[in-house]
């Protein structure tokens, strides 16, 4: 183990991932947008990593990159030693079985016209995991695992509440026995009373099945409860990363601090000093020079415009921060 990122036993490892999108139309090449720049994330079995940041921070793009749903512009992703980019179609499809996804909106992620049983069964059928006559049994077992009843298999998504739909979506993702799960804001669209149930389910599945989980969220308390490590993104770049306890209780980066203090809290009165950021994130098509956060940073100095800060360990080797102002941490 040379640094906090490249652990020898990691299941999936993304190194220096970058992804840009080209604007403009068919004939005209527009300005390109750098959605993700030089981000490295690795997960070992059974580990949950939270990816936090505001809209436009590139967190969903990273999730899709690591699932191989999108190609990298630069960098490398290896899953269990296999480079995703060099795999042929057949092996890539076979790998699909081992990596799954749960989406934010359970109203859009389930096909409204098919029964939930047949949708949970899809994964079993595509990869021919279970013989046809045993599939119903297996679907019932999967539904049971997420807290639903076997007879729910014959219903359509319409007949379920939001929380139940999200359970169905989780059962569908579990059907292929994945090792790696990307959960893209899986509780954001749910009511708070249901949110807690789905969080508990995810935590339980992770510990029982040894799932590696990439948990994408803008909700910091949720990440704190579910994850081991957290990566804070801003405009496609990593600002700070480390064990959740370290990052949440002693944030070093001014952006992490601002995010933490901006989140509304039940104990508003007794809360620490609030940092309200001025303005809005700049356009990713035209990012600021040097540190991308400097235009909104309360601690920015002239030198911030000159250099792109690198991630450096602060104290704990796993807790790393990309900020040149060592004096404020």
């Amino acid at each position, binding site marked *: 183990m040379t640094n906090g990122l490249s652990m020898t036993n990691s299941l999936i490892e993304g190194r220096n991932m970058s992804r840009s999108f080209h604007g403009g139309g068919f004939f005209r090449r527009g300005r390109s947008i750098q959605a993700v720049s030089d981000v490295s994330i690795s997960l070992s079995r059974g580990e949950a990593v939270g990816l936090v940041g505001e809209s436009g921070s590139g967190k969903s793009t990273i999730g899709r990159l690591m699932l191989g749903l999108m190609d990298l512009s630069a960098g490398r992703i290896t899953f269990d030693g296999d480079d995703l980019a060099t795999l042929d179609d057949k092996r890539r*499809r076979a790998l699909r079985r081992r990596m*799954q996804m749960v989406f934010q909106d359970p109203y*859009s*992620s*389930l096909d409204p016209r098919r029964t939930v049983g047949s949708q949970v069964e899809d994964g079993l059928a595509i990869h021919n995991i279970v013989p046809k006559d045993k599939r119903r049994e297996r679907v019932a077992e999967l539904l049971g695992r997420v807290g639903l009843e076997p007879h729910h298999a014959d219903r359509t998504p319409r007949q379920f509440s939001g929380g139940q739909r999200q359970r169905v979506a989780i059962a569908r993702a579990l059907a292929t026995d994945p090792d790696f799960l990307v959960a893209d804001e899986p509780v954001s669209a749910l009511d708070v009373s249901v*949110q807690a*149930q789905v969080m508990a389910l995810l935590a339980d599945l992770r510990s029982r099945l040894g799932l590696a989980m990439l948990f994408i969220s803008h909700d910091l308390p949720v990440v704190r*409860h579910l994850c081991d490590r957290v990566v804070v993104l801003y405009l496609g770049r990593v600002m700070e990363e480390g064990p959740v306890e370290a990052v949440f209780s002693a944030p070093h980066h001014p952006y992490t601090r601002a995010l933490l203090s901006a989140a509304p809290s039940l104990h508003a009165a007794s809360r620490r000093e609030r940092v309200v950021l001025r303005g809005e994130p700049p356009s990713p098509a035209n990012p600021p020079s040097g540190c991308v956060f400097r235009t909104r940073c309360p601690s920015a100095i002239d030198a911030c415009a000159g250099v792109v800060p690198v991630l450096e360990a602060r104290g704990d080797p796993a807790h790393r921060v990309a900020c040149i102002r060592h004096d404020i941490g």
Partner: protein
Amino acid sequence: MRRLPWIPIVAVGLIVLAALAAPYVGLADPVAMDVAHRLAAPSAAHPLGQDEYGRDVLSRLIWGARTSLGIAFAAAAIACVVGTILGLVGGYVRGVAELLAVRSMDVVLCFPPLLLALLVVTLMGPGASTLIPVLAIVYLPSFTRVAYAGVLSVRGHEYVTAMKVLGAGRLRIMTRTILPNIAGPVLVQFSLAAASAVVLESGLSFLGLGVVPPAPSWGLMIGAARGTMVQAPLLLLWPCLALTVTILAMNSLCDGLRDVLDPHPAARRASWFSRFRRIAAPVVPEPAEPGTVLDVRGLTVAIGDPGDGKLAVRDVSFHVREGETLAIVGESGSGKSLMSLSAIGMVPAGVEVSGGTATMEGKDLLALPAAELRKLLGDRMAMIFQDPGSSLNPVHRVGSQIAEAIRAHRPVSRRAAMTQAVTLLRNVGIPDPERRAKAFPHELSGGMRQRVMIAMAIANGPRLLVADEPTTALDVTIQAQVLDLLASLKRDGGLGLLFITHSLPVVAEIADRVAVMYAGEILEEGPTAEIFADPRHPYTAALLRSAPKDDGPAPEGIPGTVPVPGDLPAGCVFAPRCDKRIDTCVKTRPPLFDIGPGRASRCIRWASL
């Protein structure tokens, strides 16, 4: 499931059945001539008379249906299958396939259908075997277009991405996932194309380019009858009638199918604020205490027919004072938005206020005529919504939208209103307001748009601002800015703020008082700090436990779901999910207990919690 369109189904069914049964029901030979009785009037042997060669008209009409419908359905079916495949492949695979499948159809569309048909028939000679492919080509582009548009909207859904994640191949995704979801519009297009193919077939046959005489066809019959129109006008009537009835039946079948397959209920298409009516006799409200902006008493709202007893909001009372924020908090389905909209007279379609008063400045908003209410809206009271993108007009500059809002209530010049608009934009914290006033809504970010909405809402200095989840769609740092802005408006302007949200932490940030709603009732009410520190209703306590905290124990959920109006428990509405439930809770519905200064709880065990 919506009711099927039975009348058109039966009508089309009968026509198709008649056409299919033509050879078996003992009709006269449709081509047997009887020149002696040419143009004979209707008789027992020939119920609709005989044509210019003495052939039986009824028999020719029914055999003609067989020809016309046969050609039309065959052509529509071919066009449907080929067009759907082209649209599916073009829309899903994209790239070159899209160019070939969809753009080639645009070329076909460039020919007027009749000209295209004329051209092909002239080249290949008339007859049913030519007509079917010709008509199929004419209707092919419409199917491709419909399928293509359907694929483009469906492919963006996450359930399609979910199939990709599962490792499904393209063929599987196209046939199993996308096809069923575009089947509705394609089916409607099929009945549309079949109906119009019947007309086109008749037209071509009339021109002598379709079915070859003496075979029976409606178009041929009309053509022949035209020659003898003066002697036997009835001959013209029968085929025209047959054509009209068939097309009418097929088109209404189309409309019916579209309504059945469209997942959006028809009732909801009506405008959101279209209706305003109250059933109960108006009650003279007691005068509110000074400083009260809005005083709501006993508000009850019924969904659908009030006789059904589906009361979505029951006996809700609350008030908002000057310079105060009252938060209405609840899960989805608790009726919080419905209640708040109804309280300011904006009653959604399909909903009726069946009791209560809502007093503002001495007027009962629930009894005001629509015109009076409109004068108050945007002037004395204003609203902001969750999605600022859809509440701003996309084709007008934001500055002029604010100016219009001012000019709707104040007699000021356009120039003066624009100056005010810029000042307002500056007041809500928009940098460079002179330039931003000239921007269109899509040029602004979500946070900026919400600021514009707030500027518009406060333009006329309202006393009451109703904010329905105004920060839910915003990022957390932007949410903090907007909450700060609302708090300063309330503080400086003496504005009463009614804040609807599902987020307890947001309530803690902004609200002076909070009312917890559940299944259409207020379960607990009081000062925010007191309620959060010492909840006196098990539901409030459970909600607080389920909110994730910065530190402390993991959040706990509340098992079960919110009951729906019309299926409420007999006793306390929360009893089925309550961990403090006793027998009495299940039997009788508790009243709202007064439990201290400004505090109320609807739990019989409030004292022992």
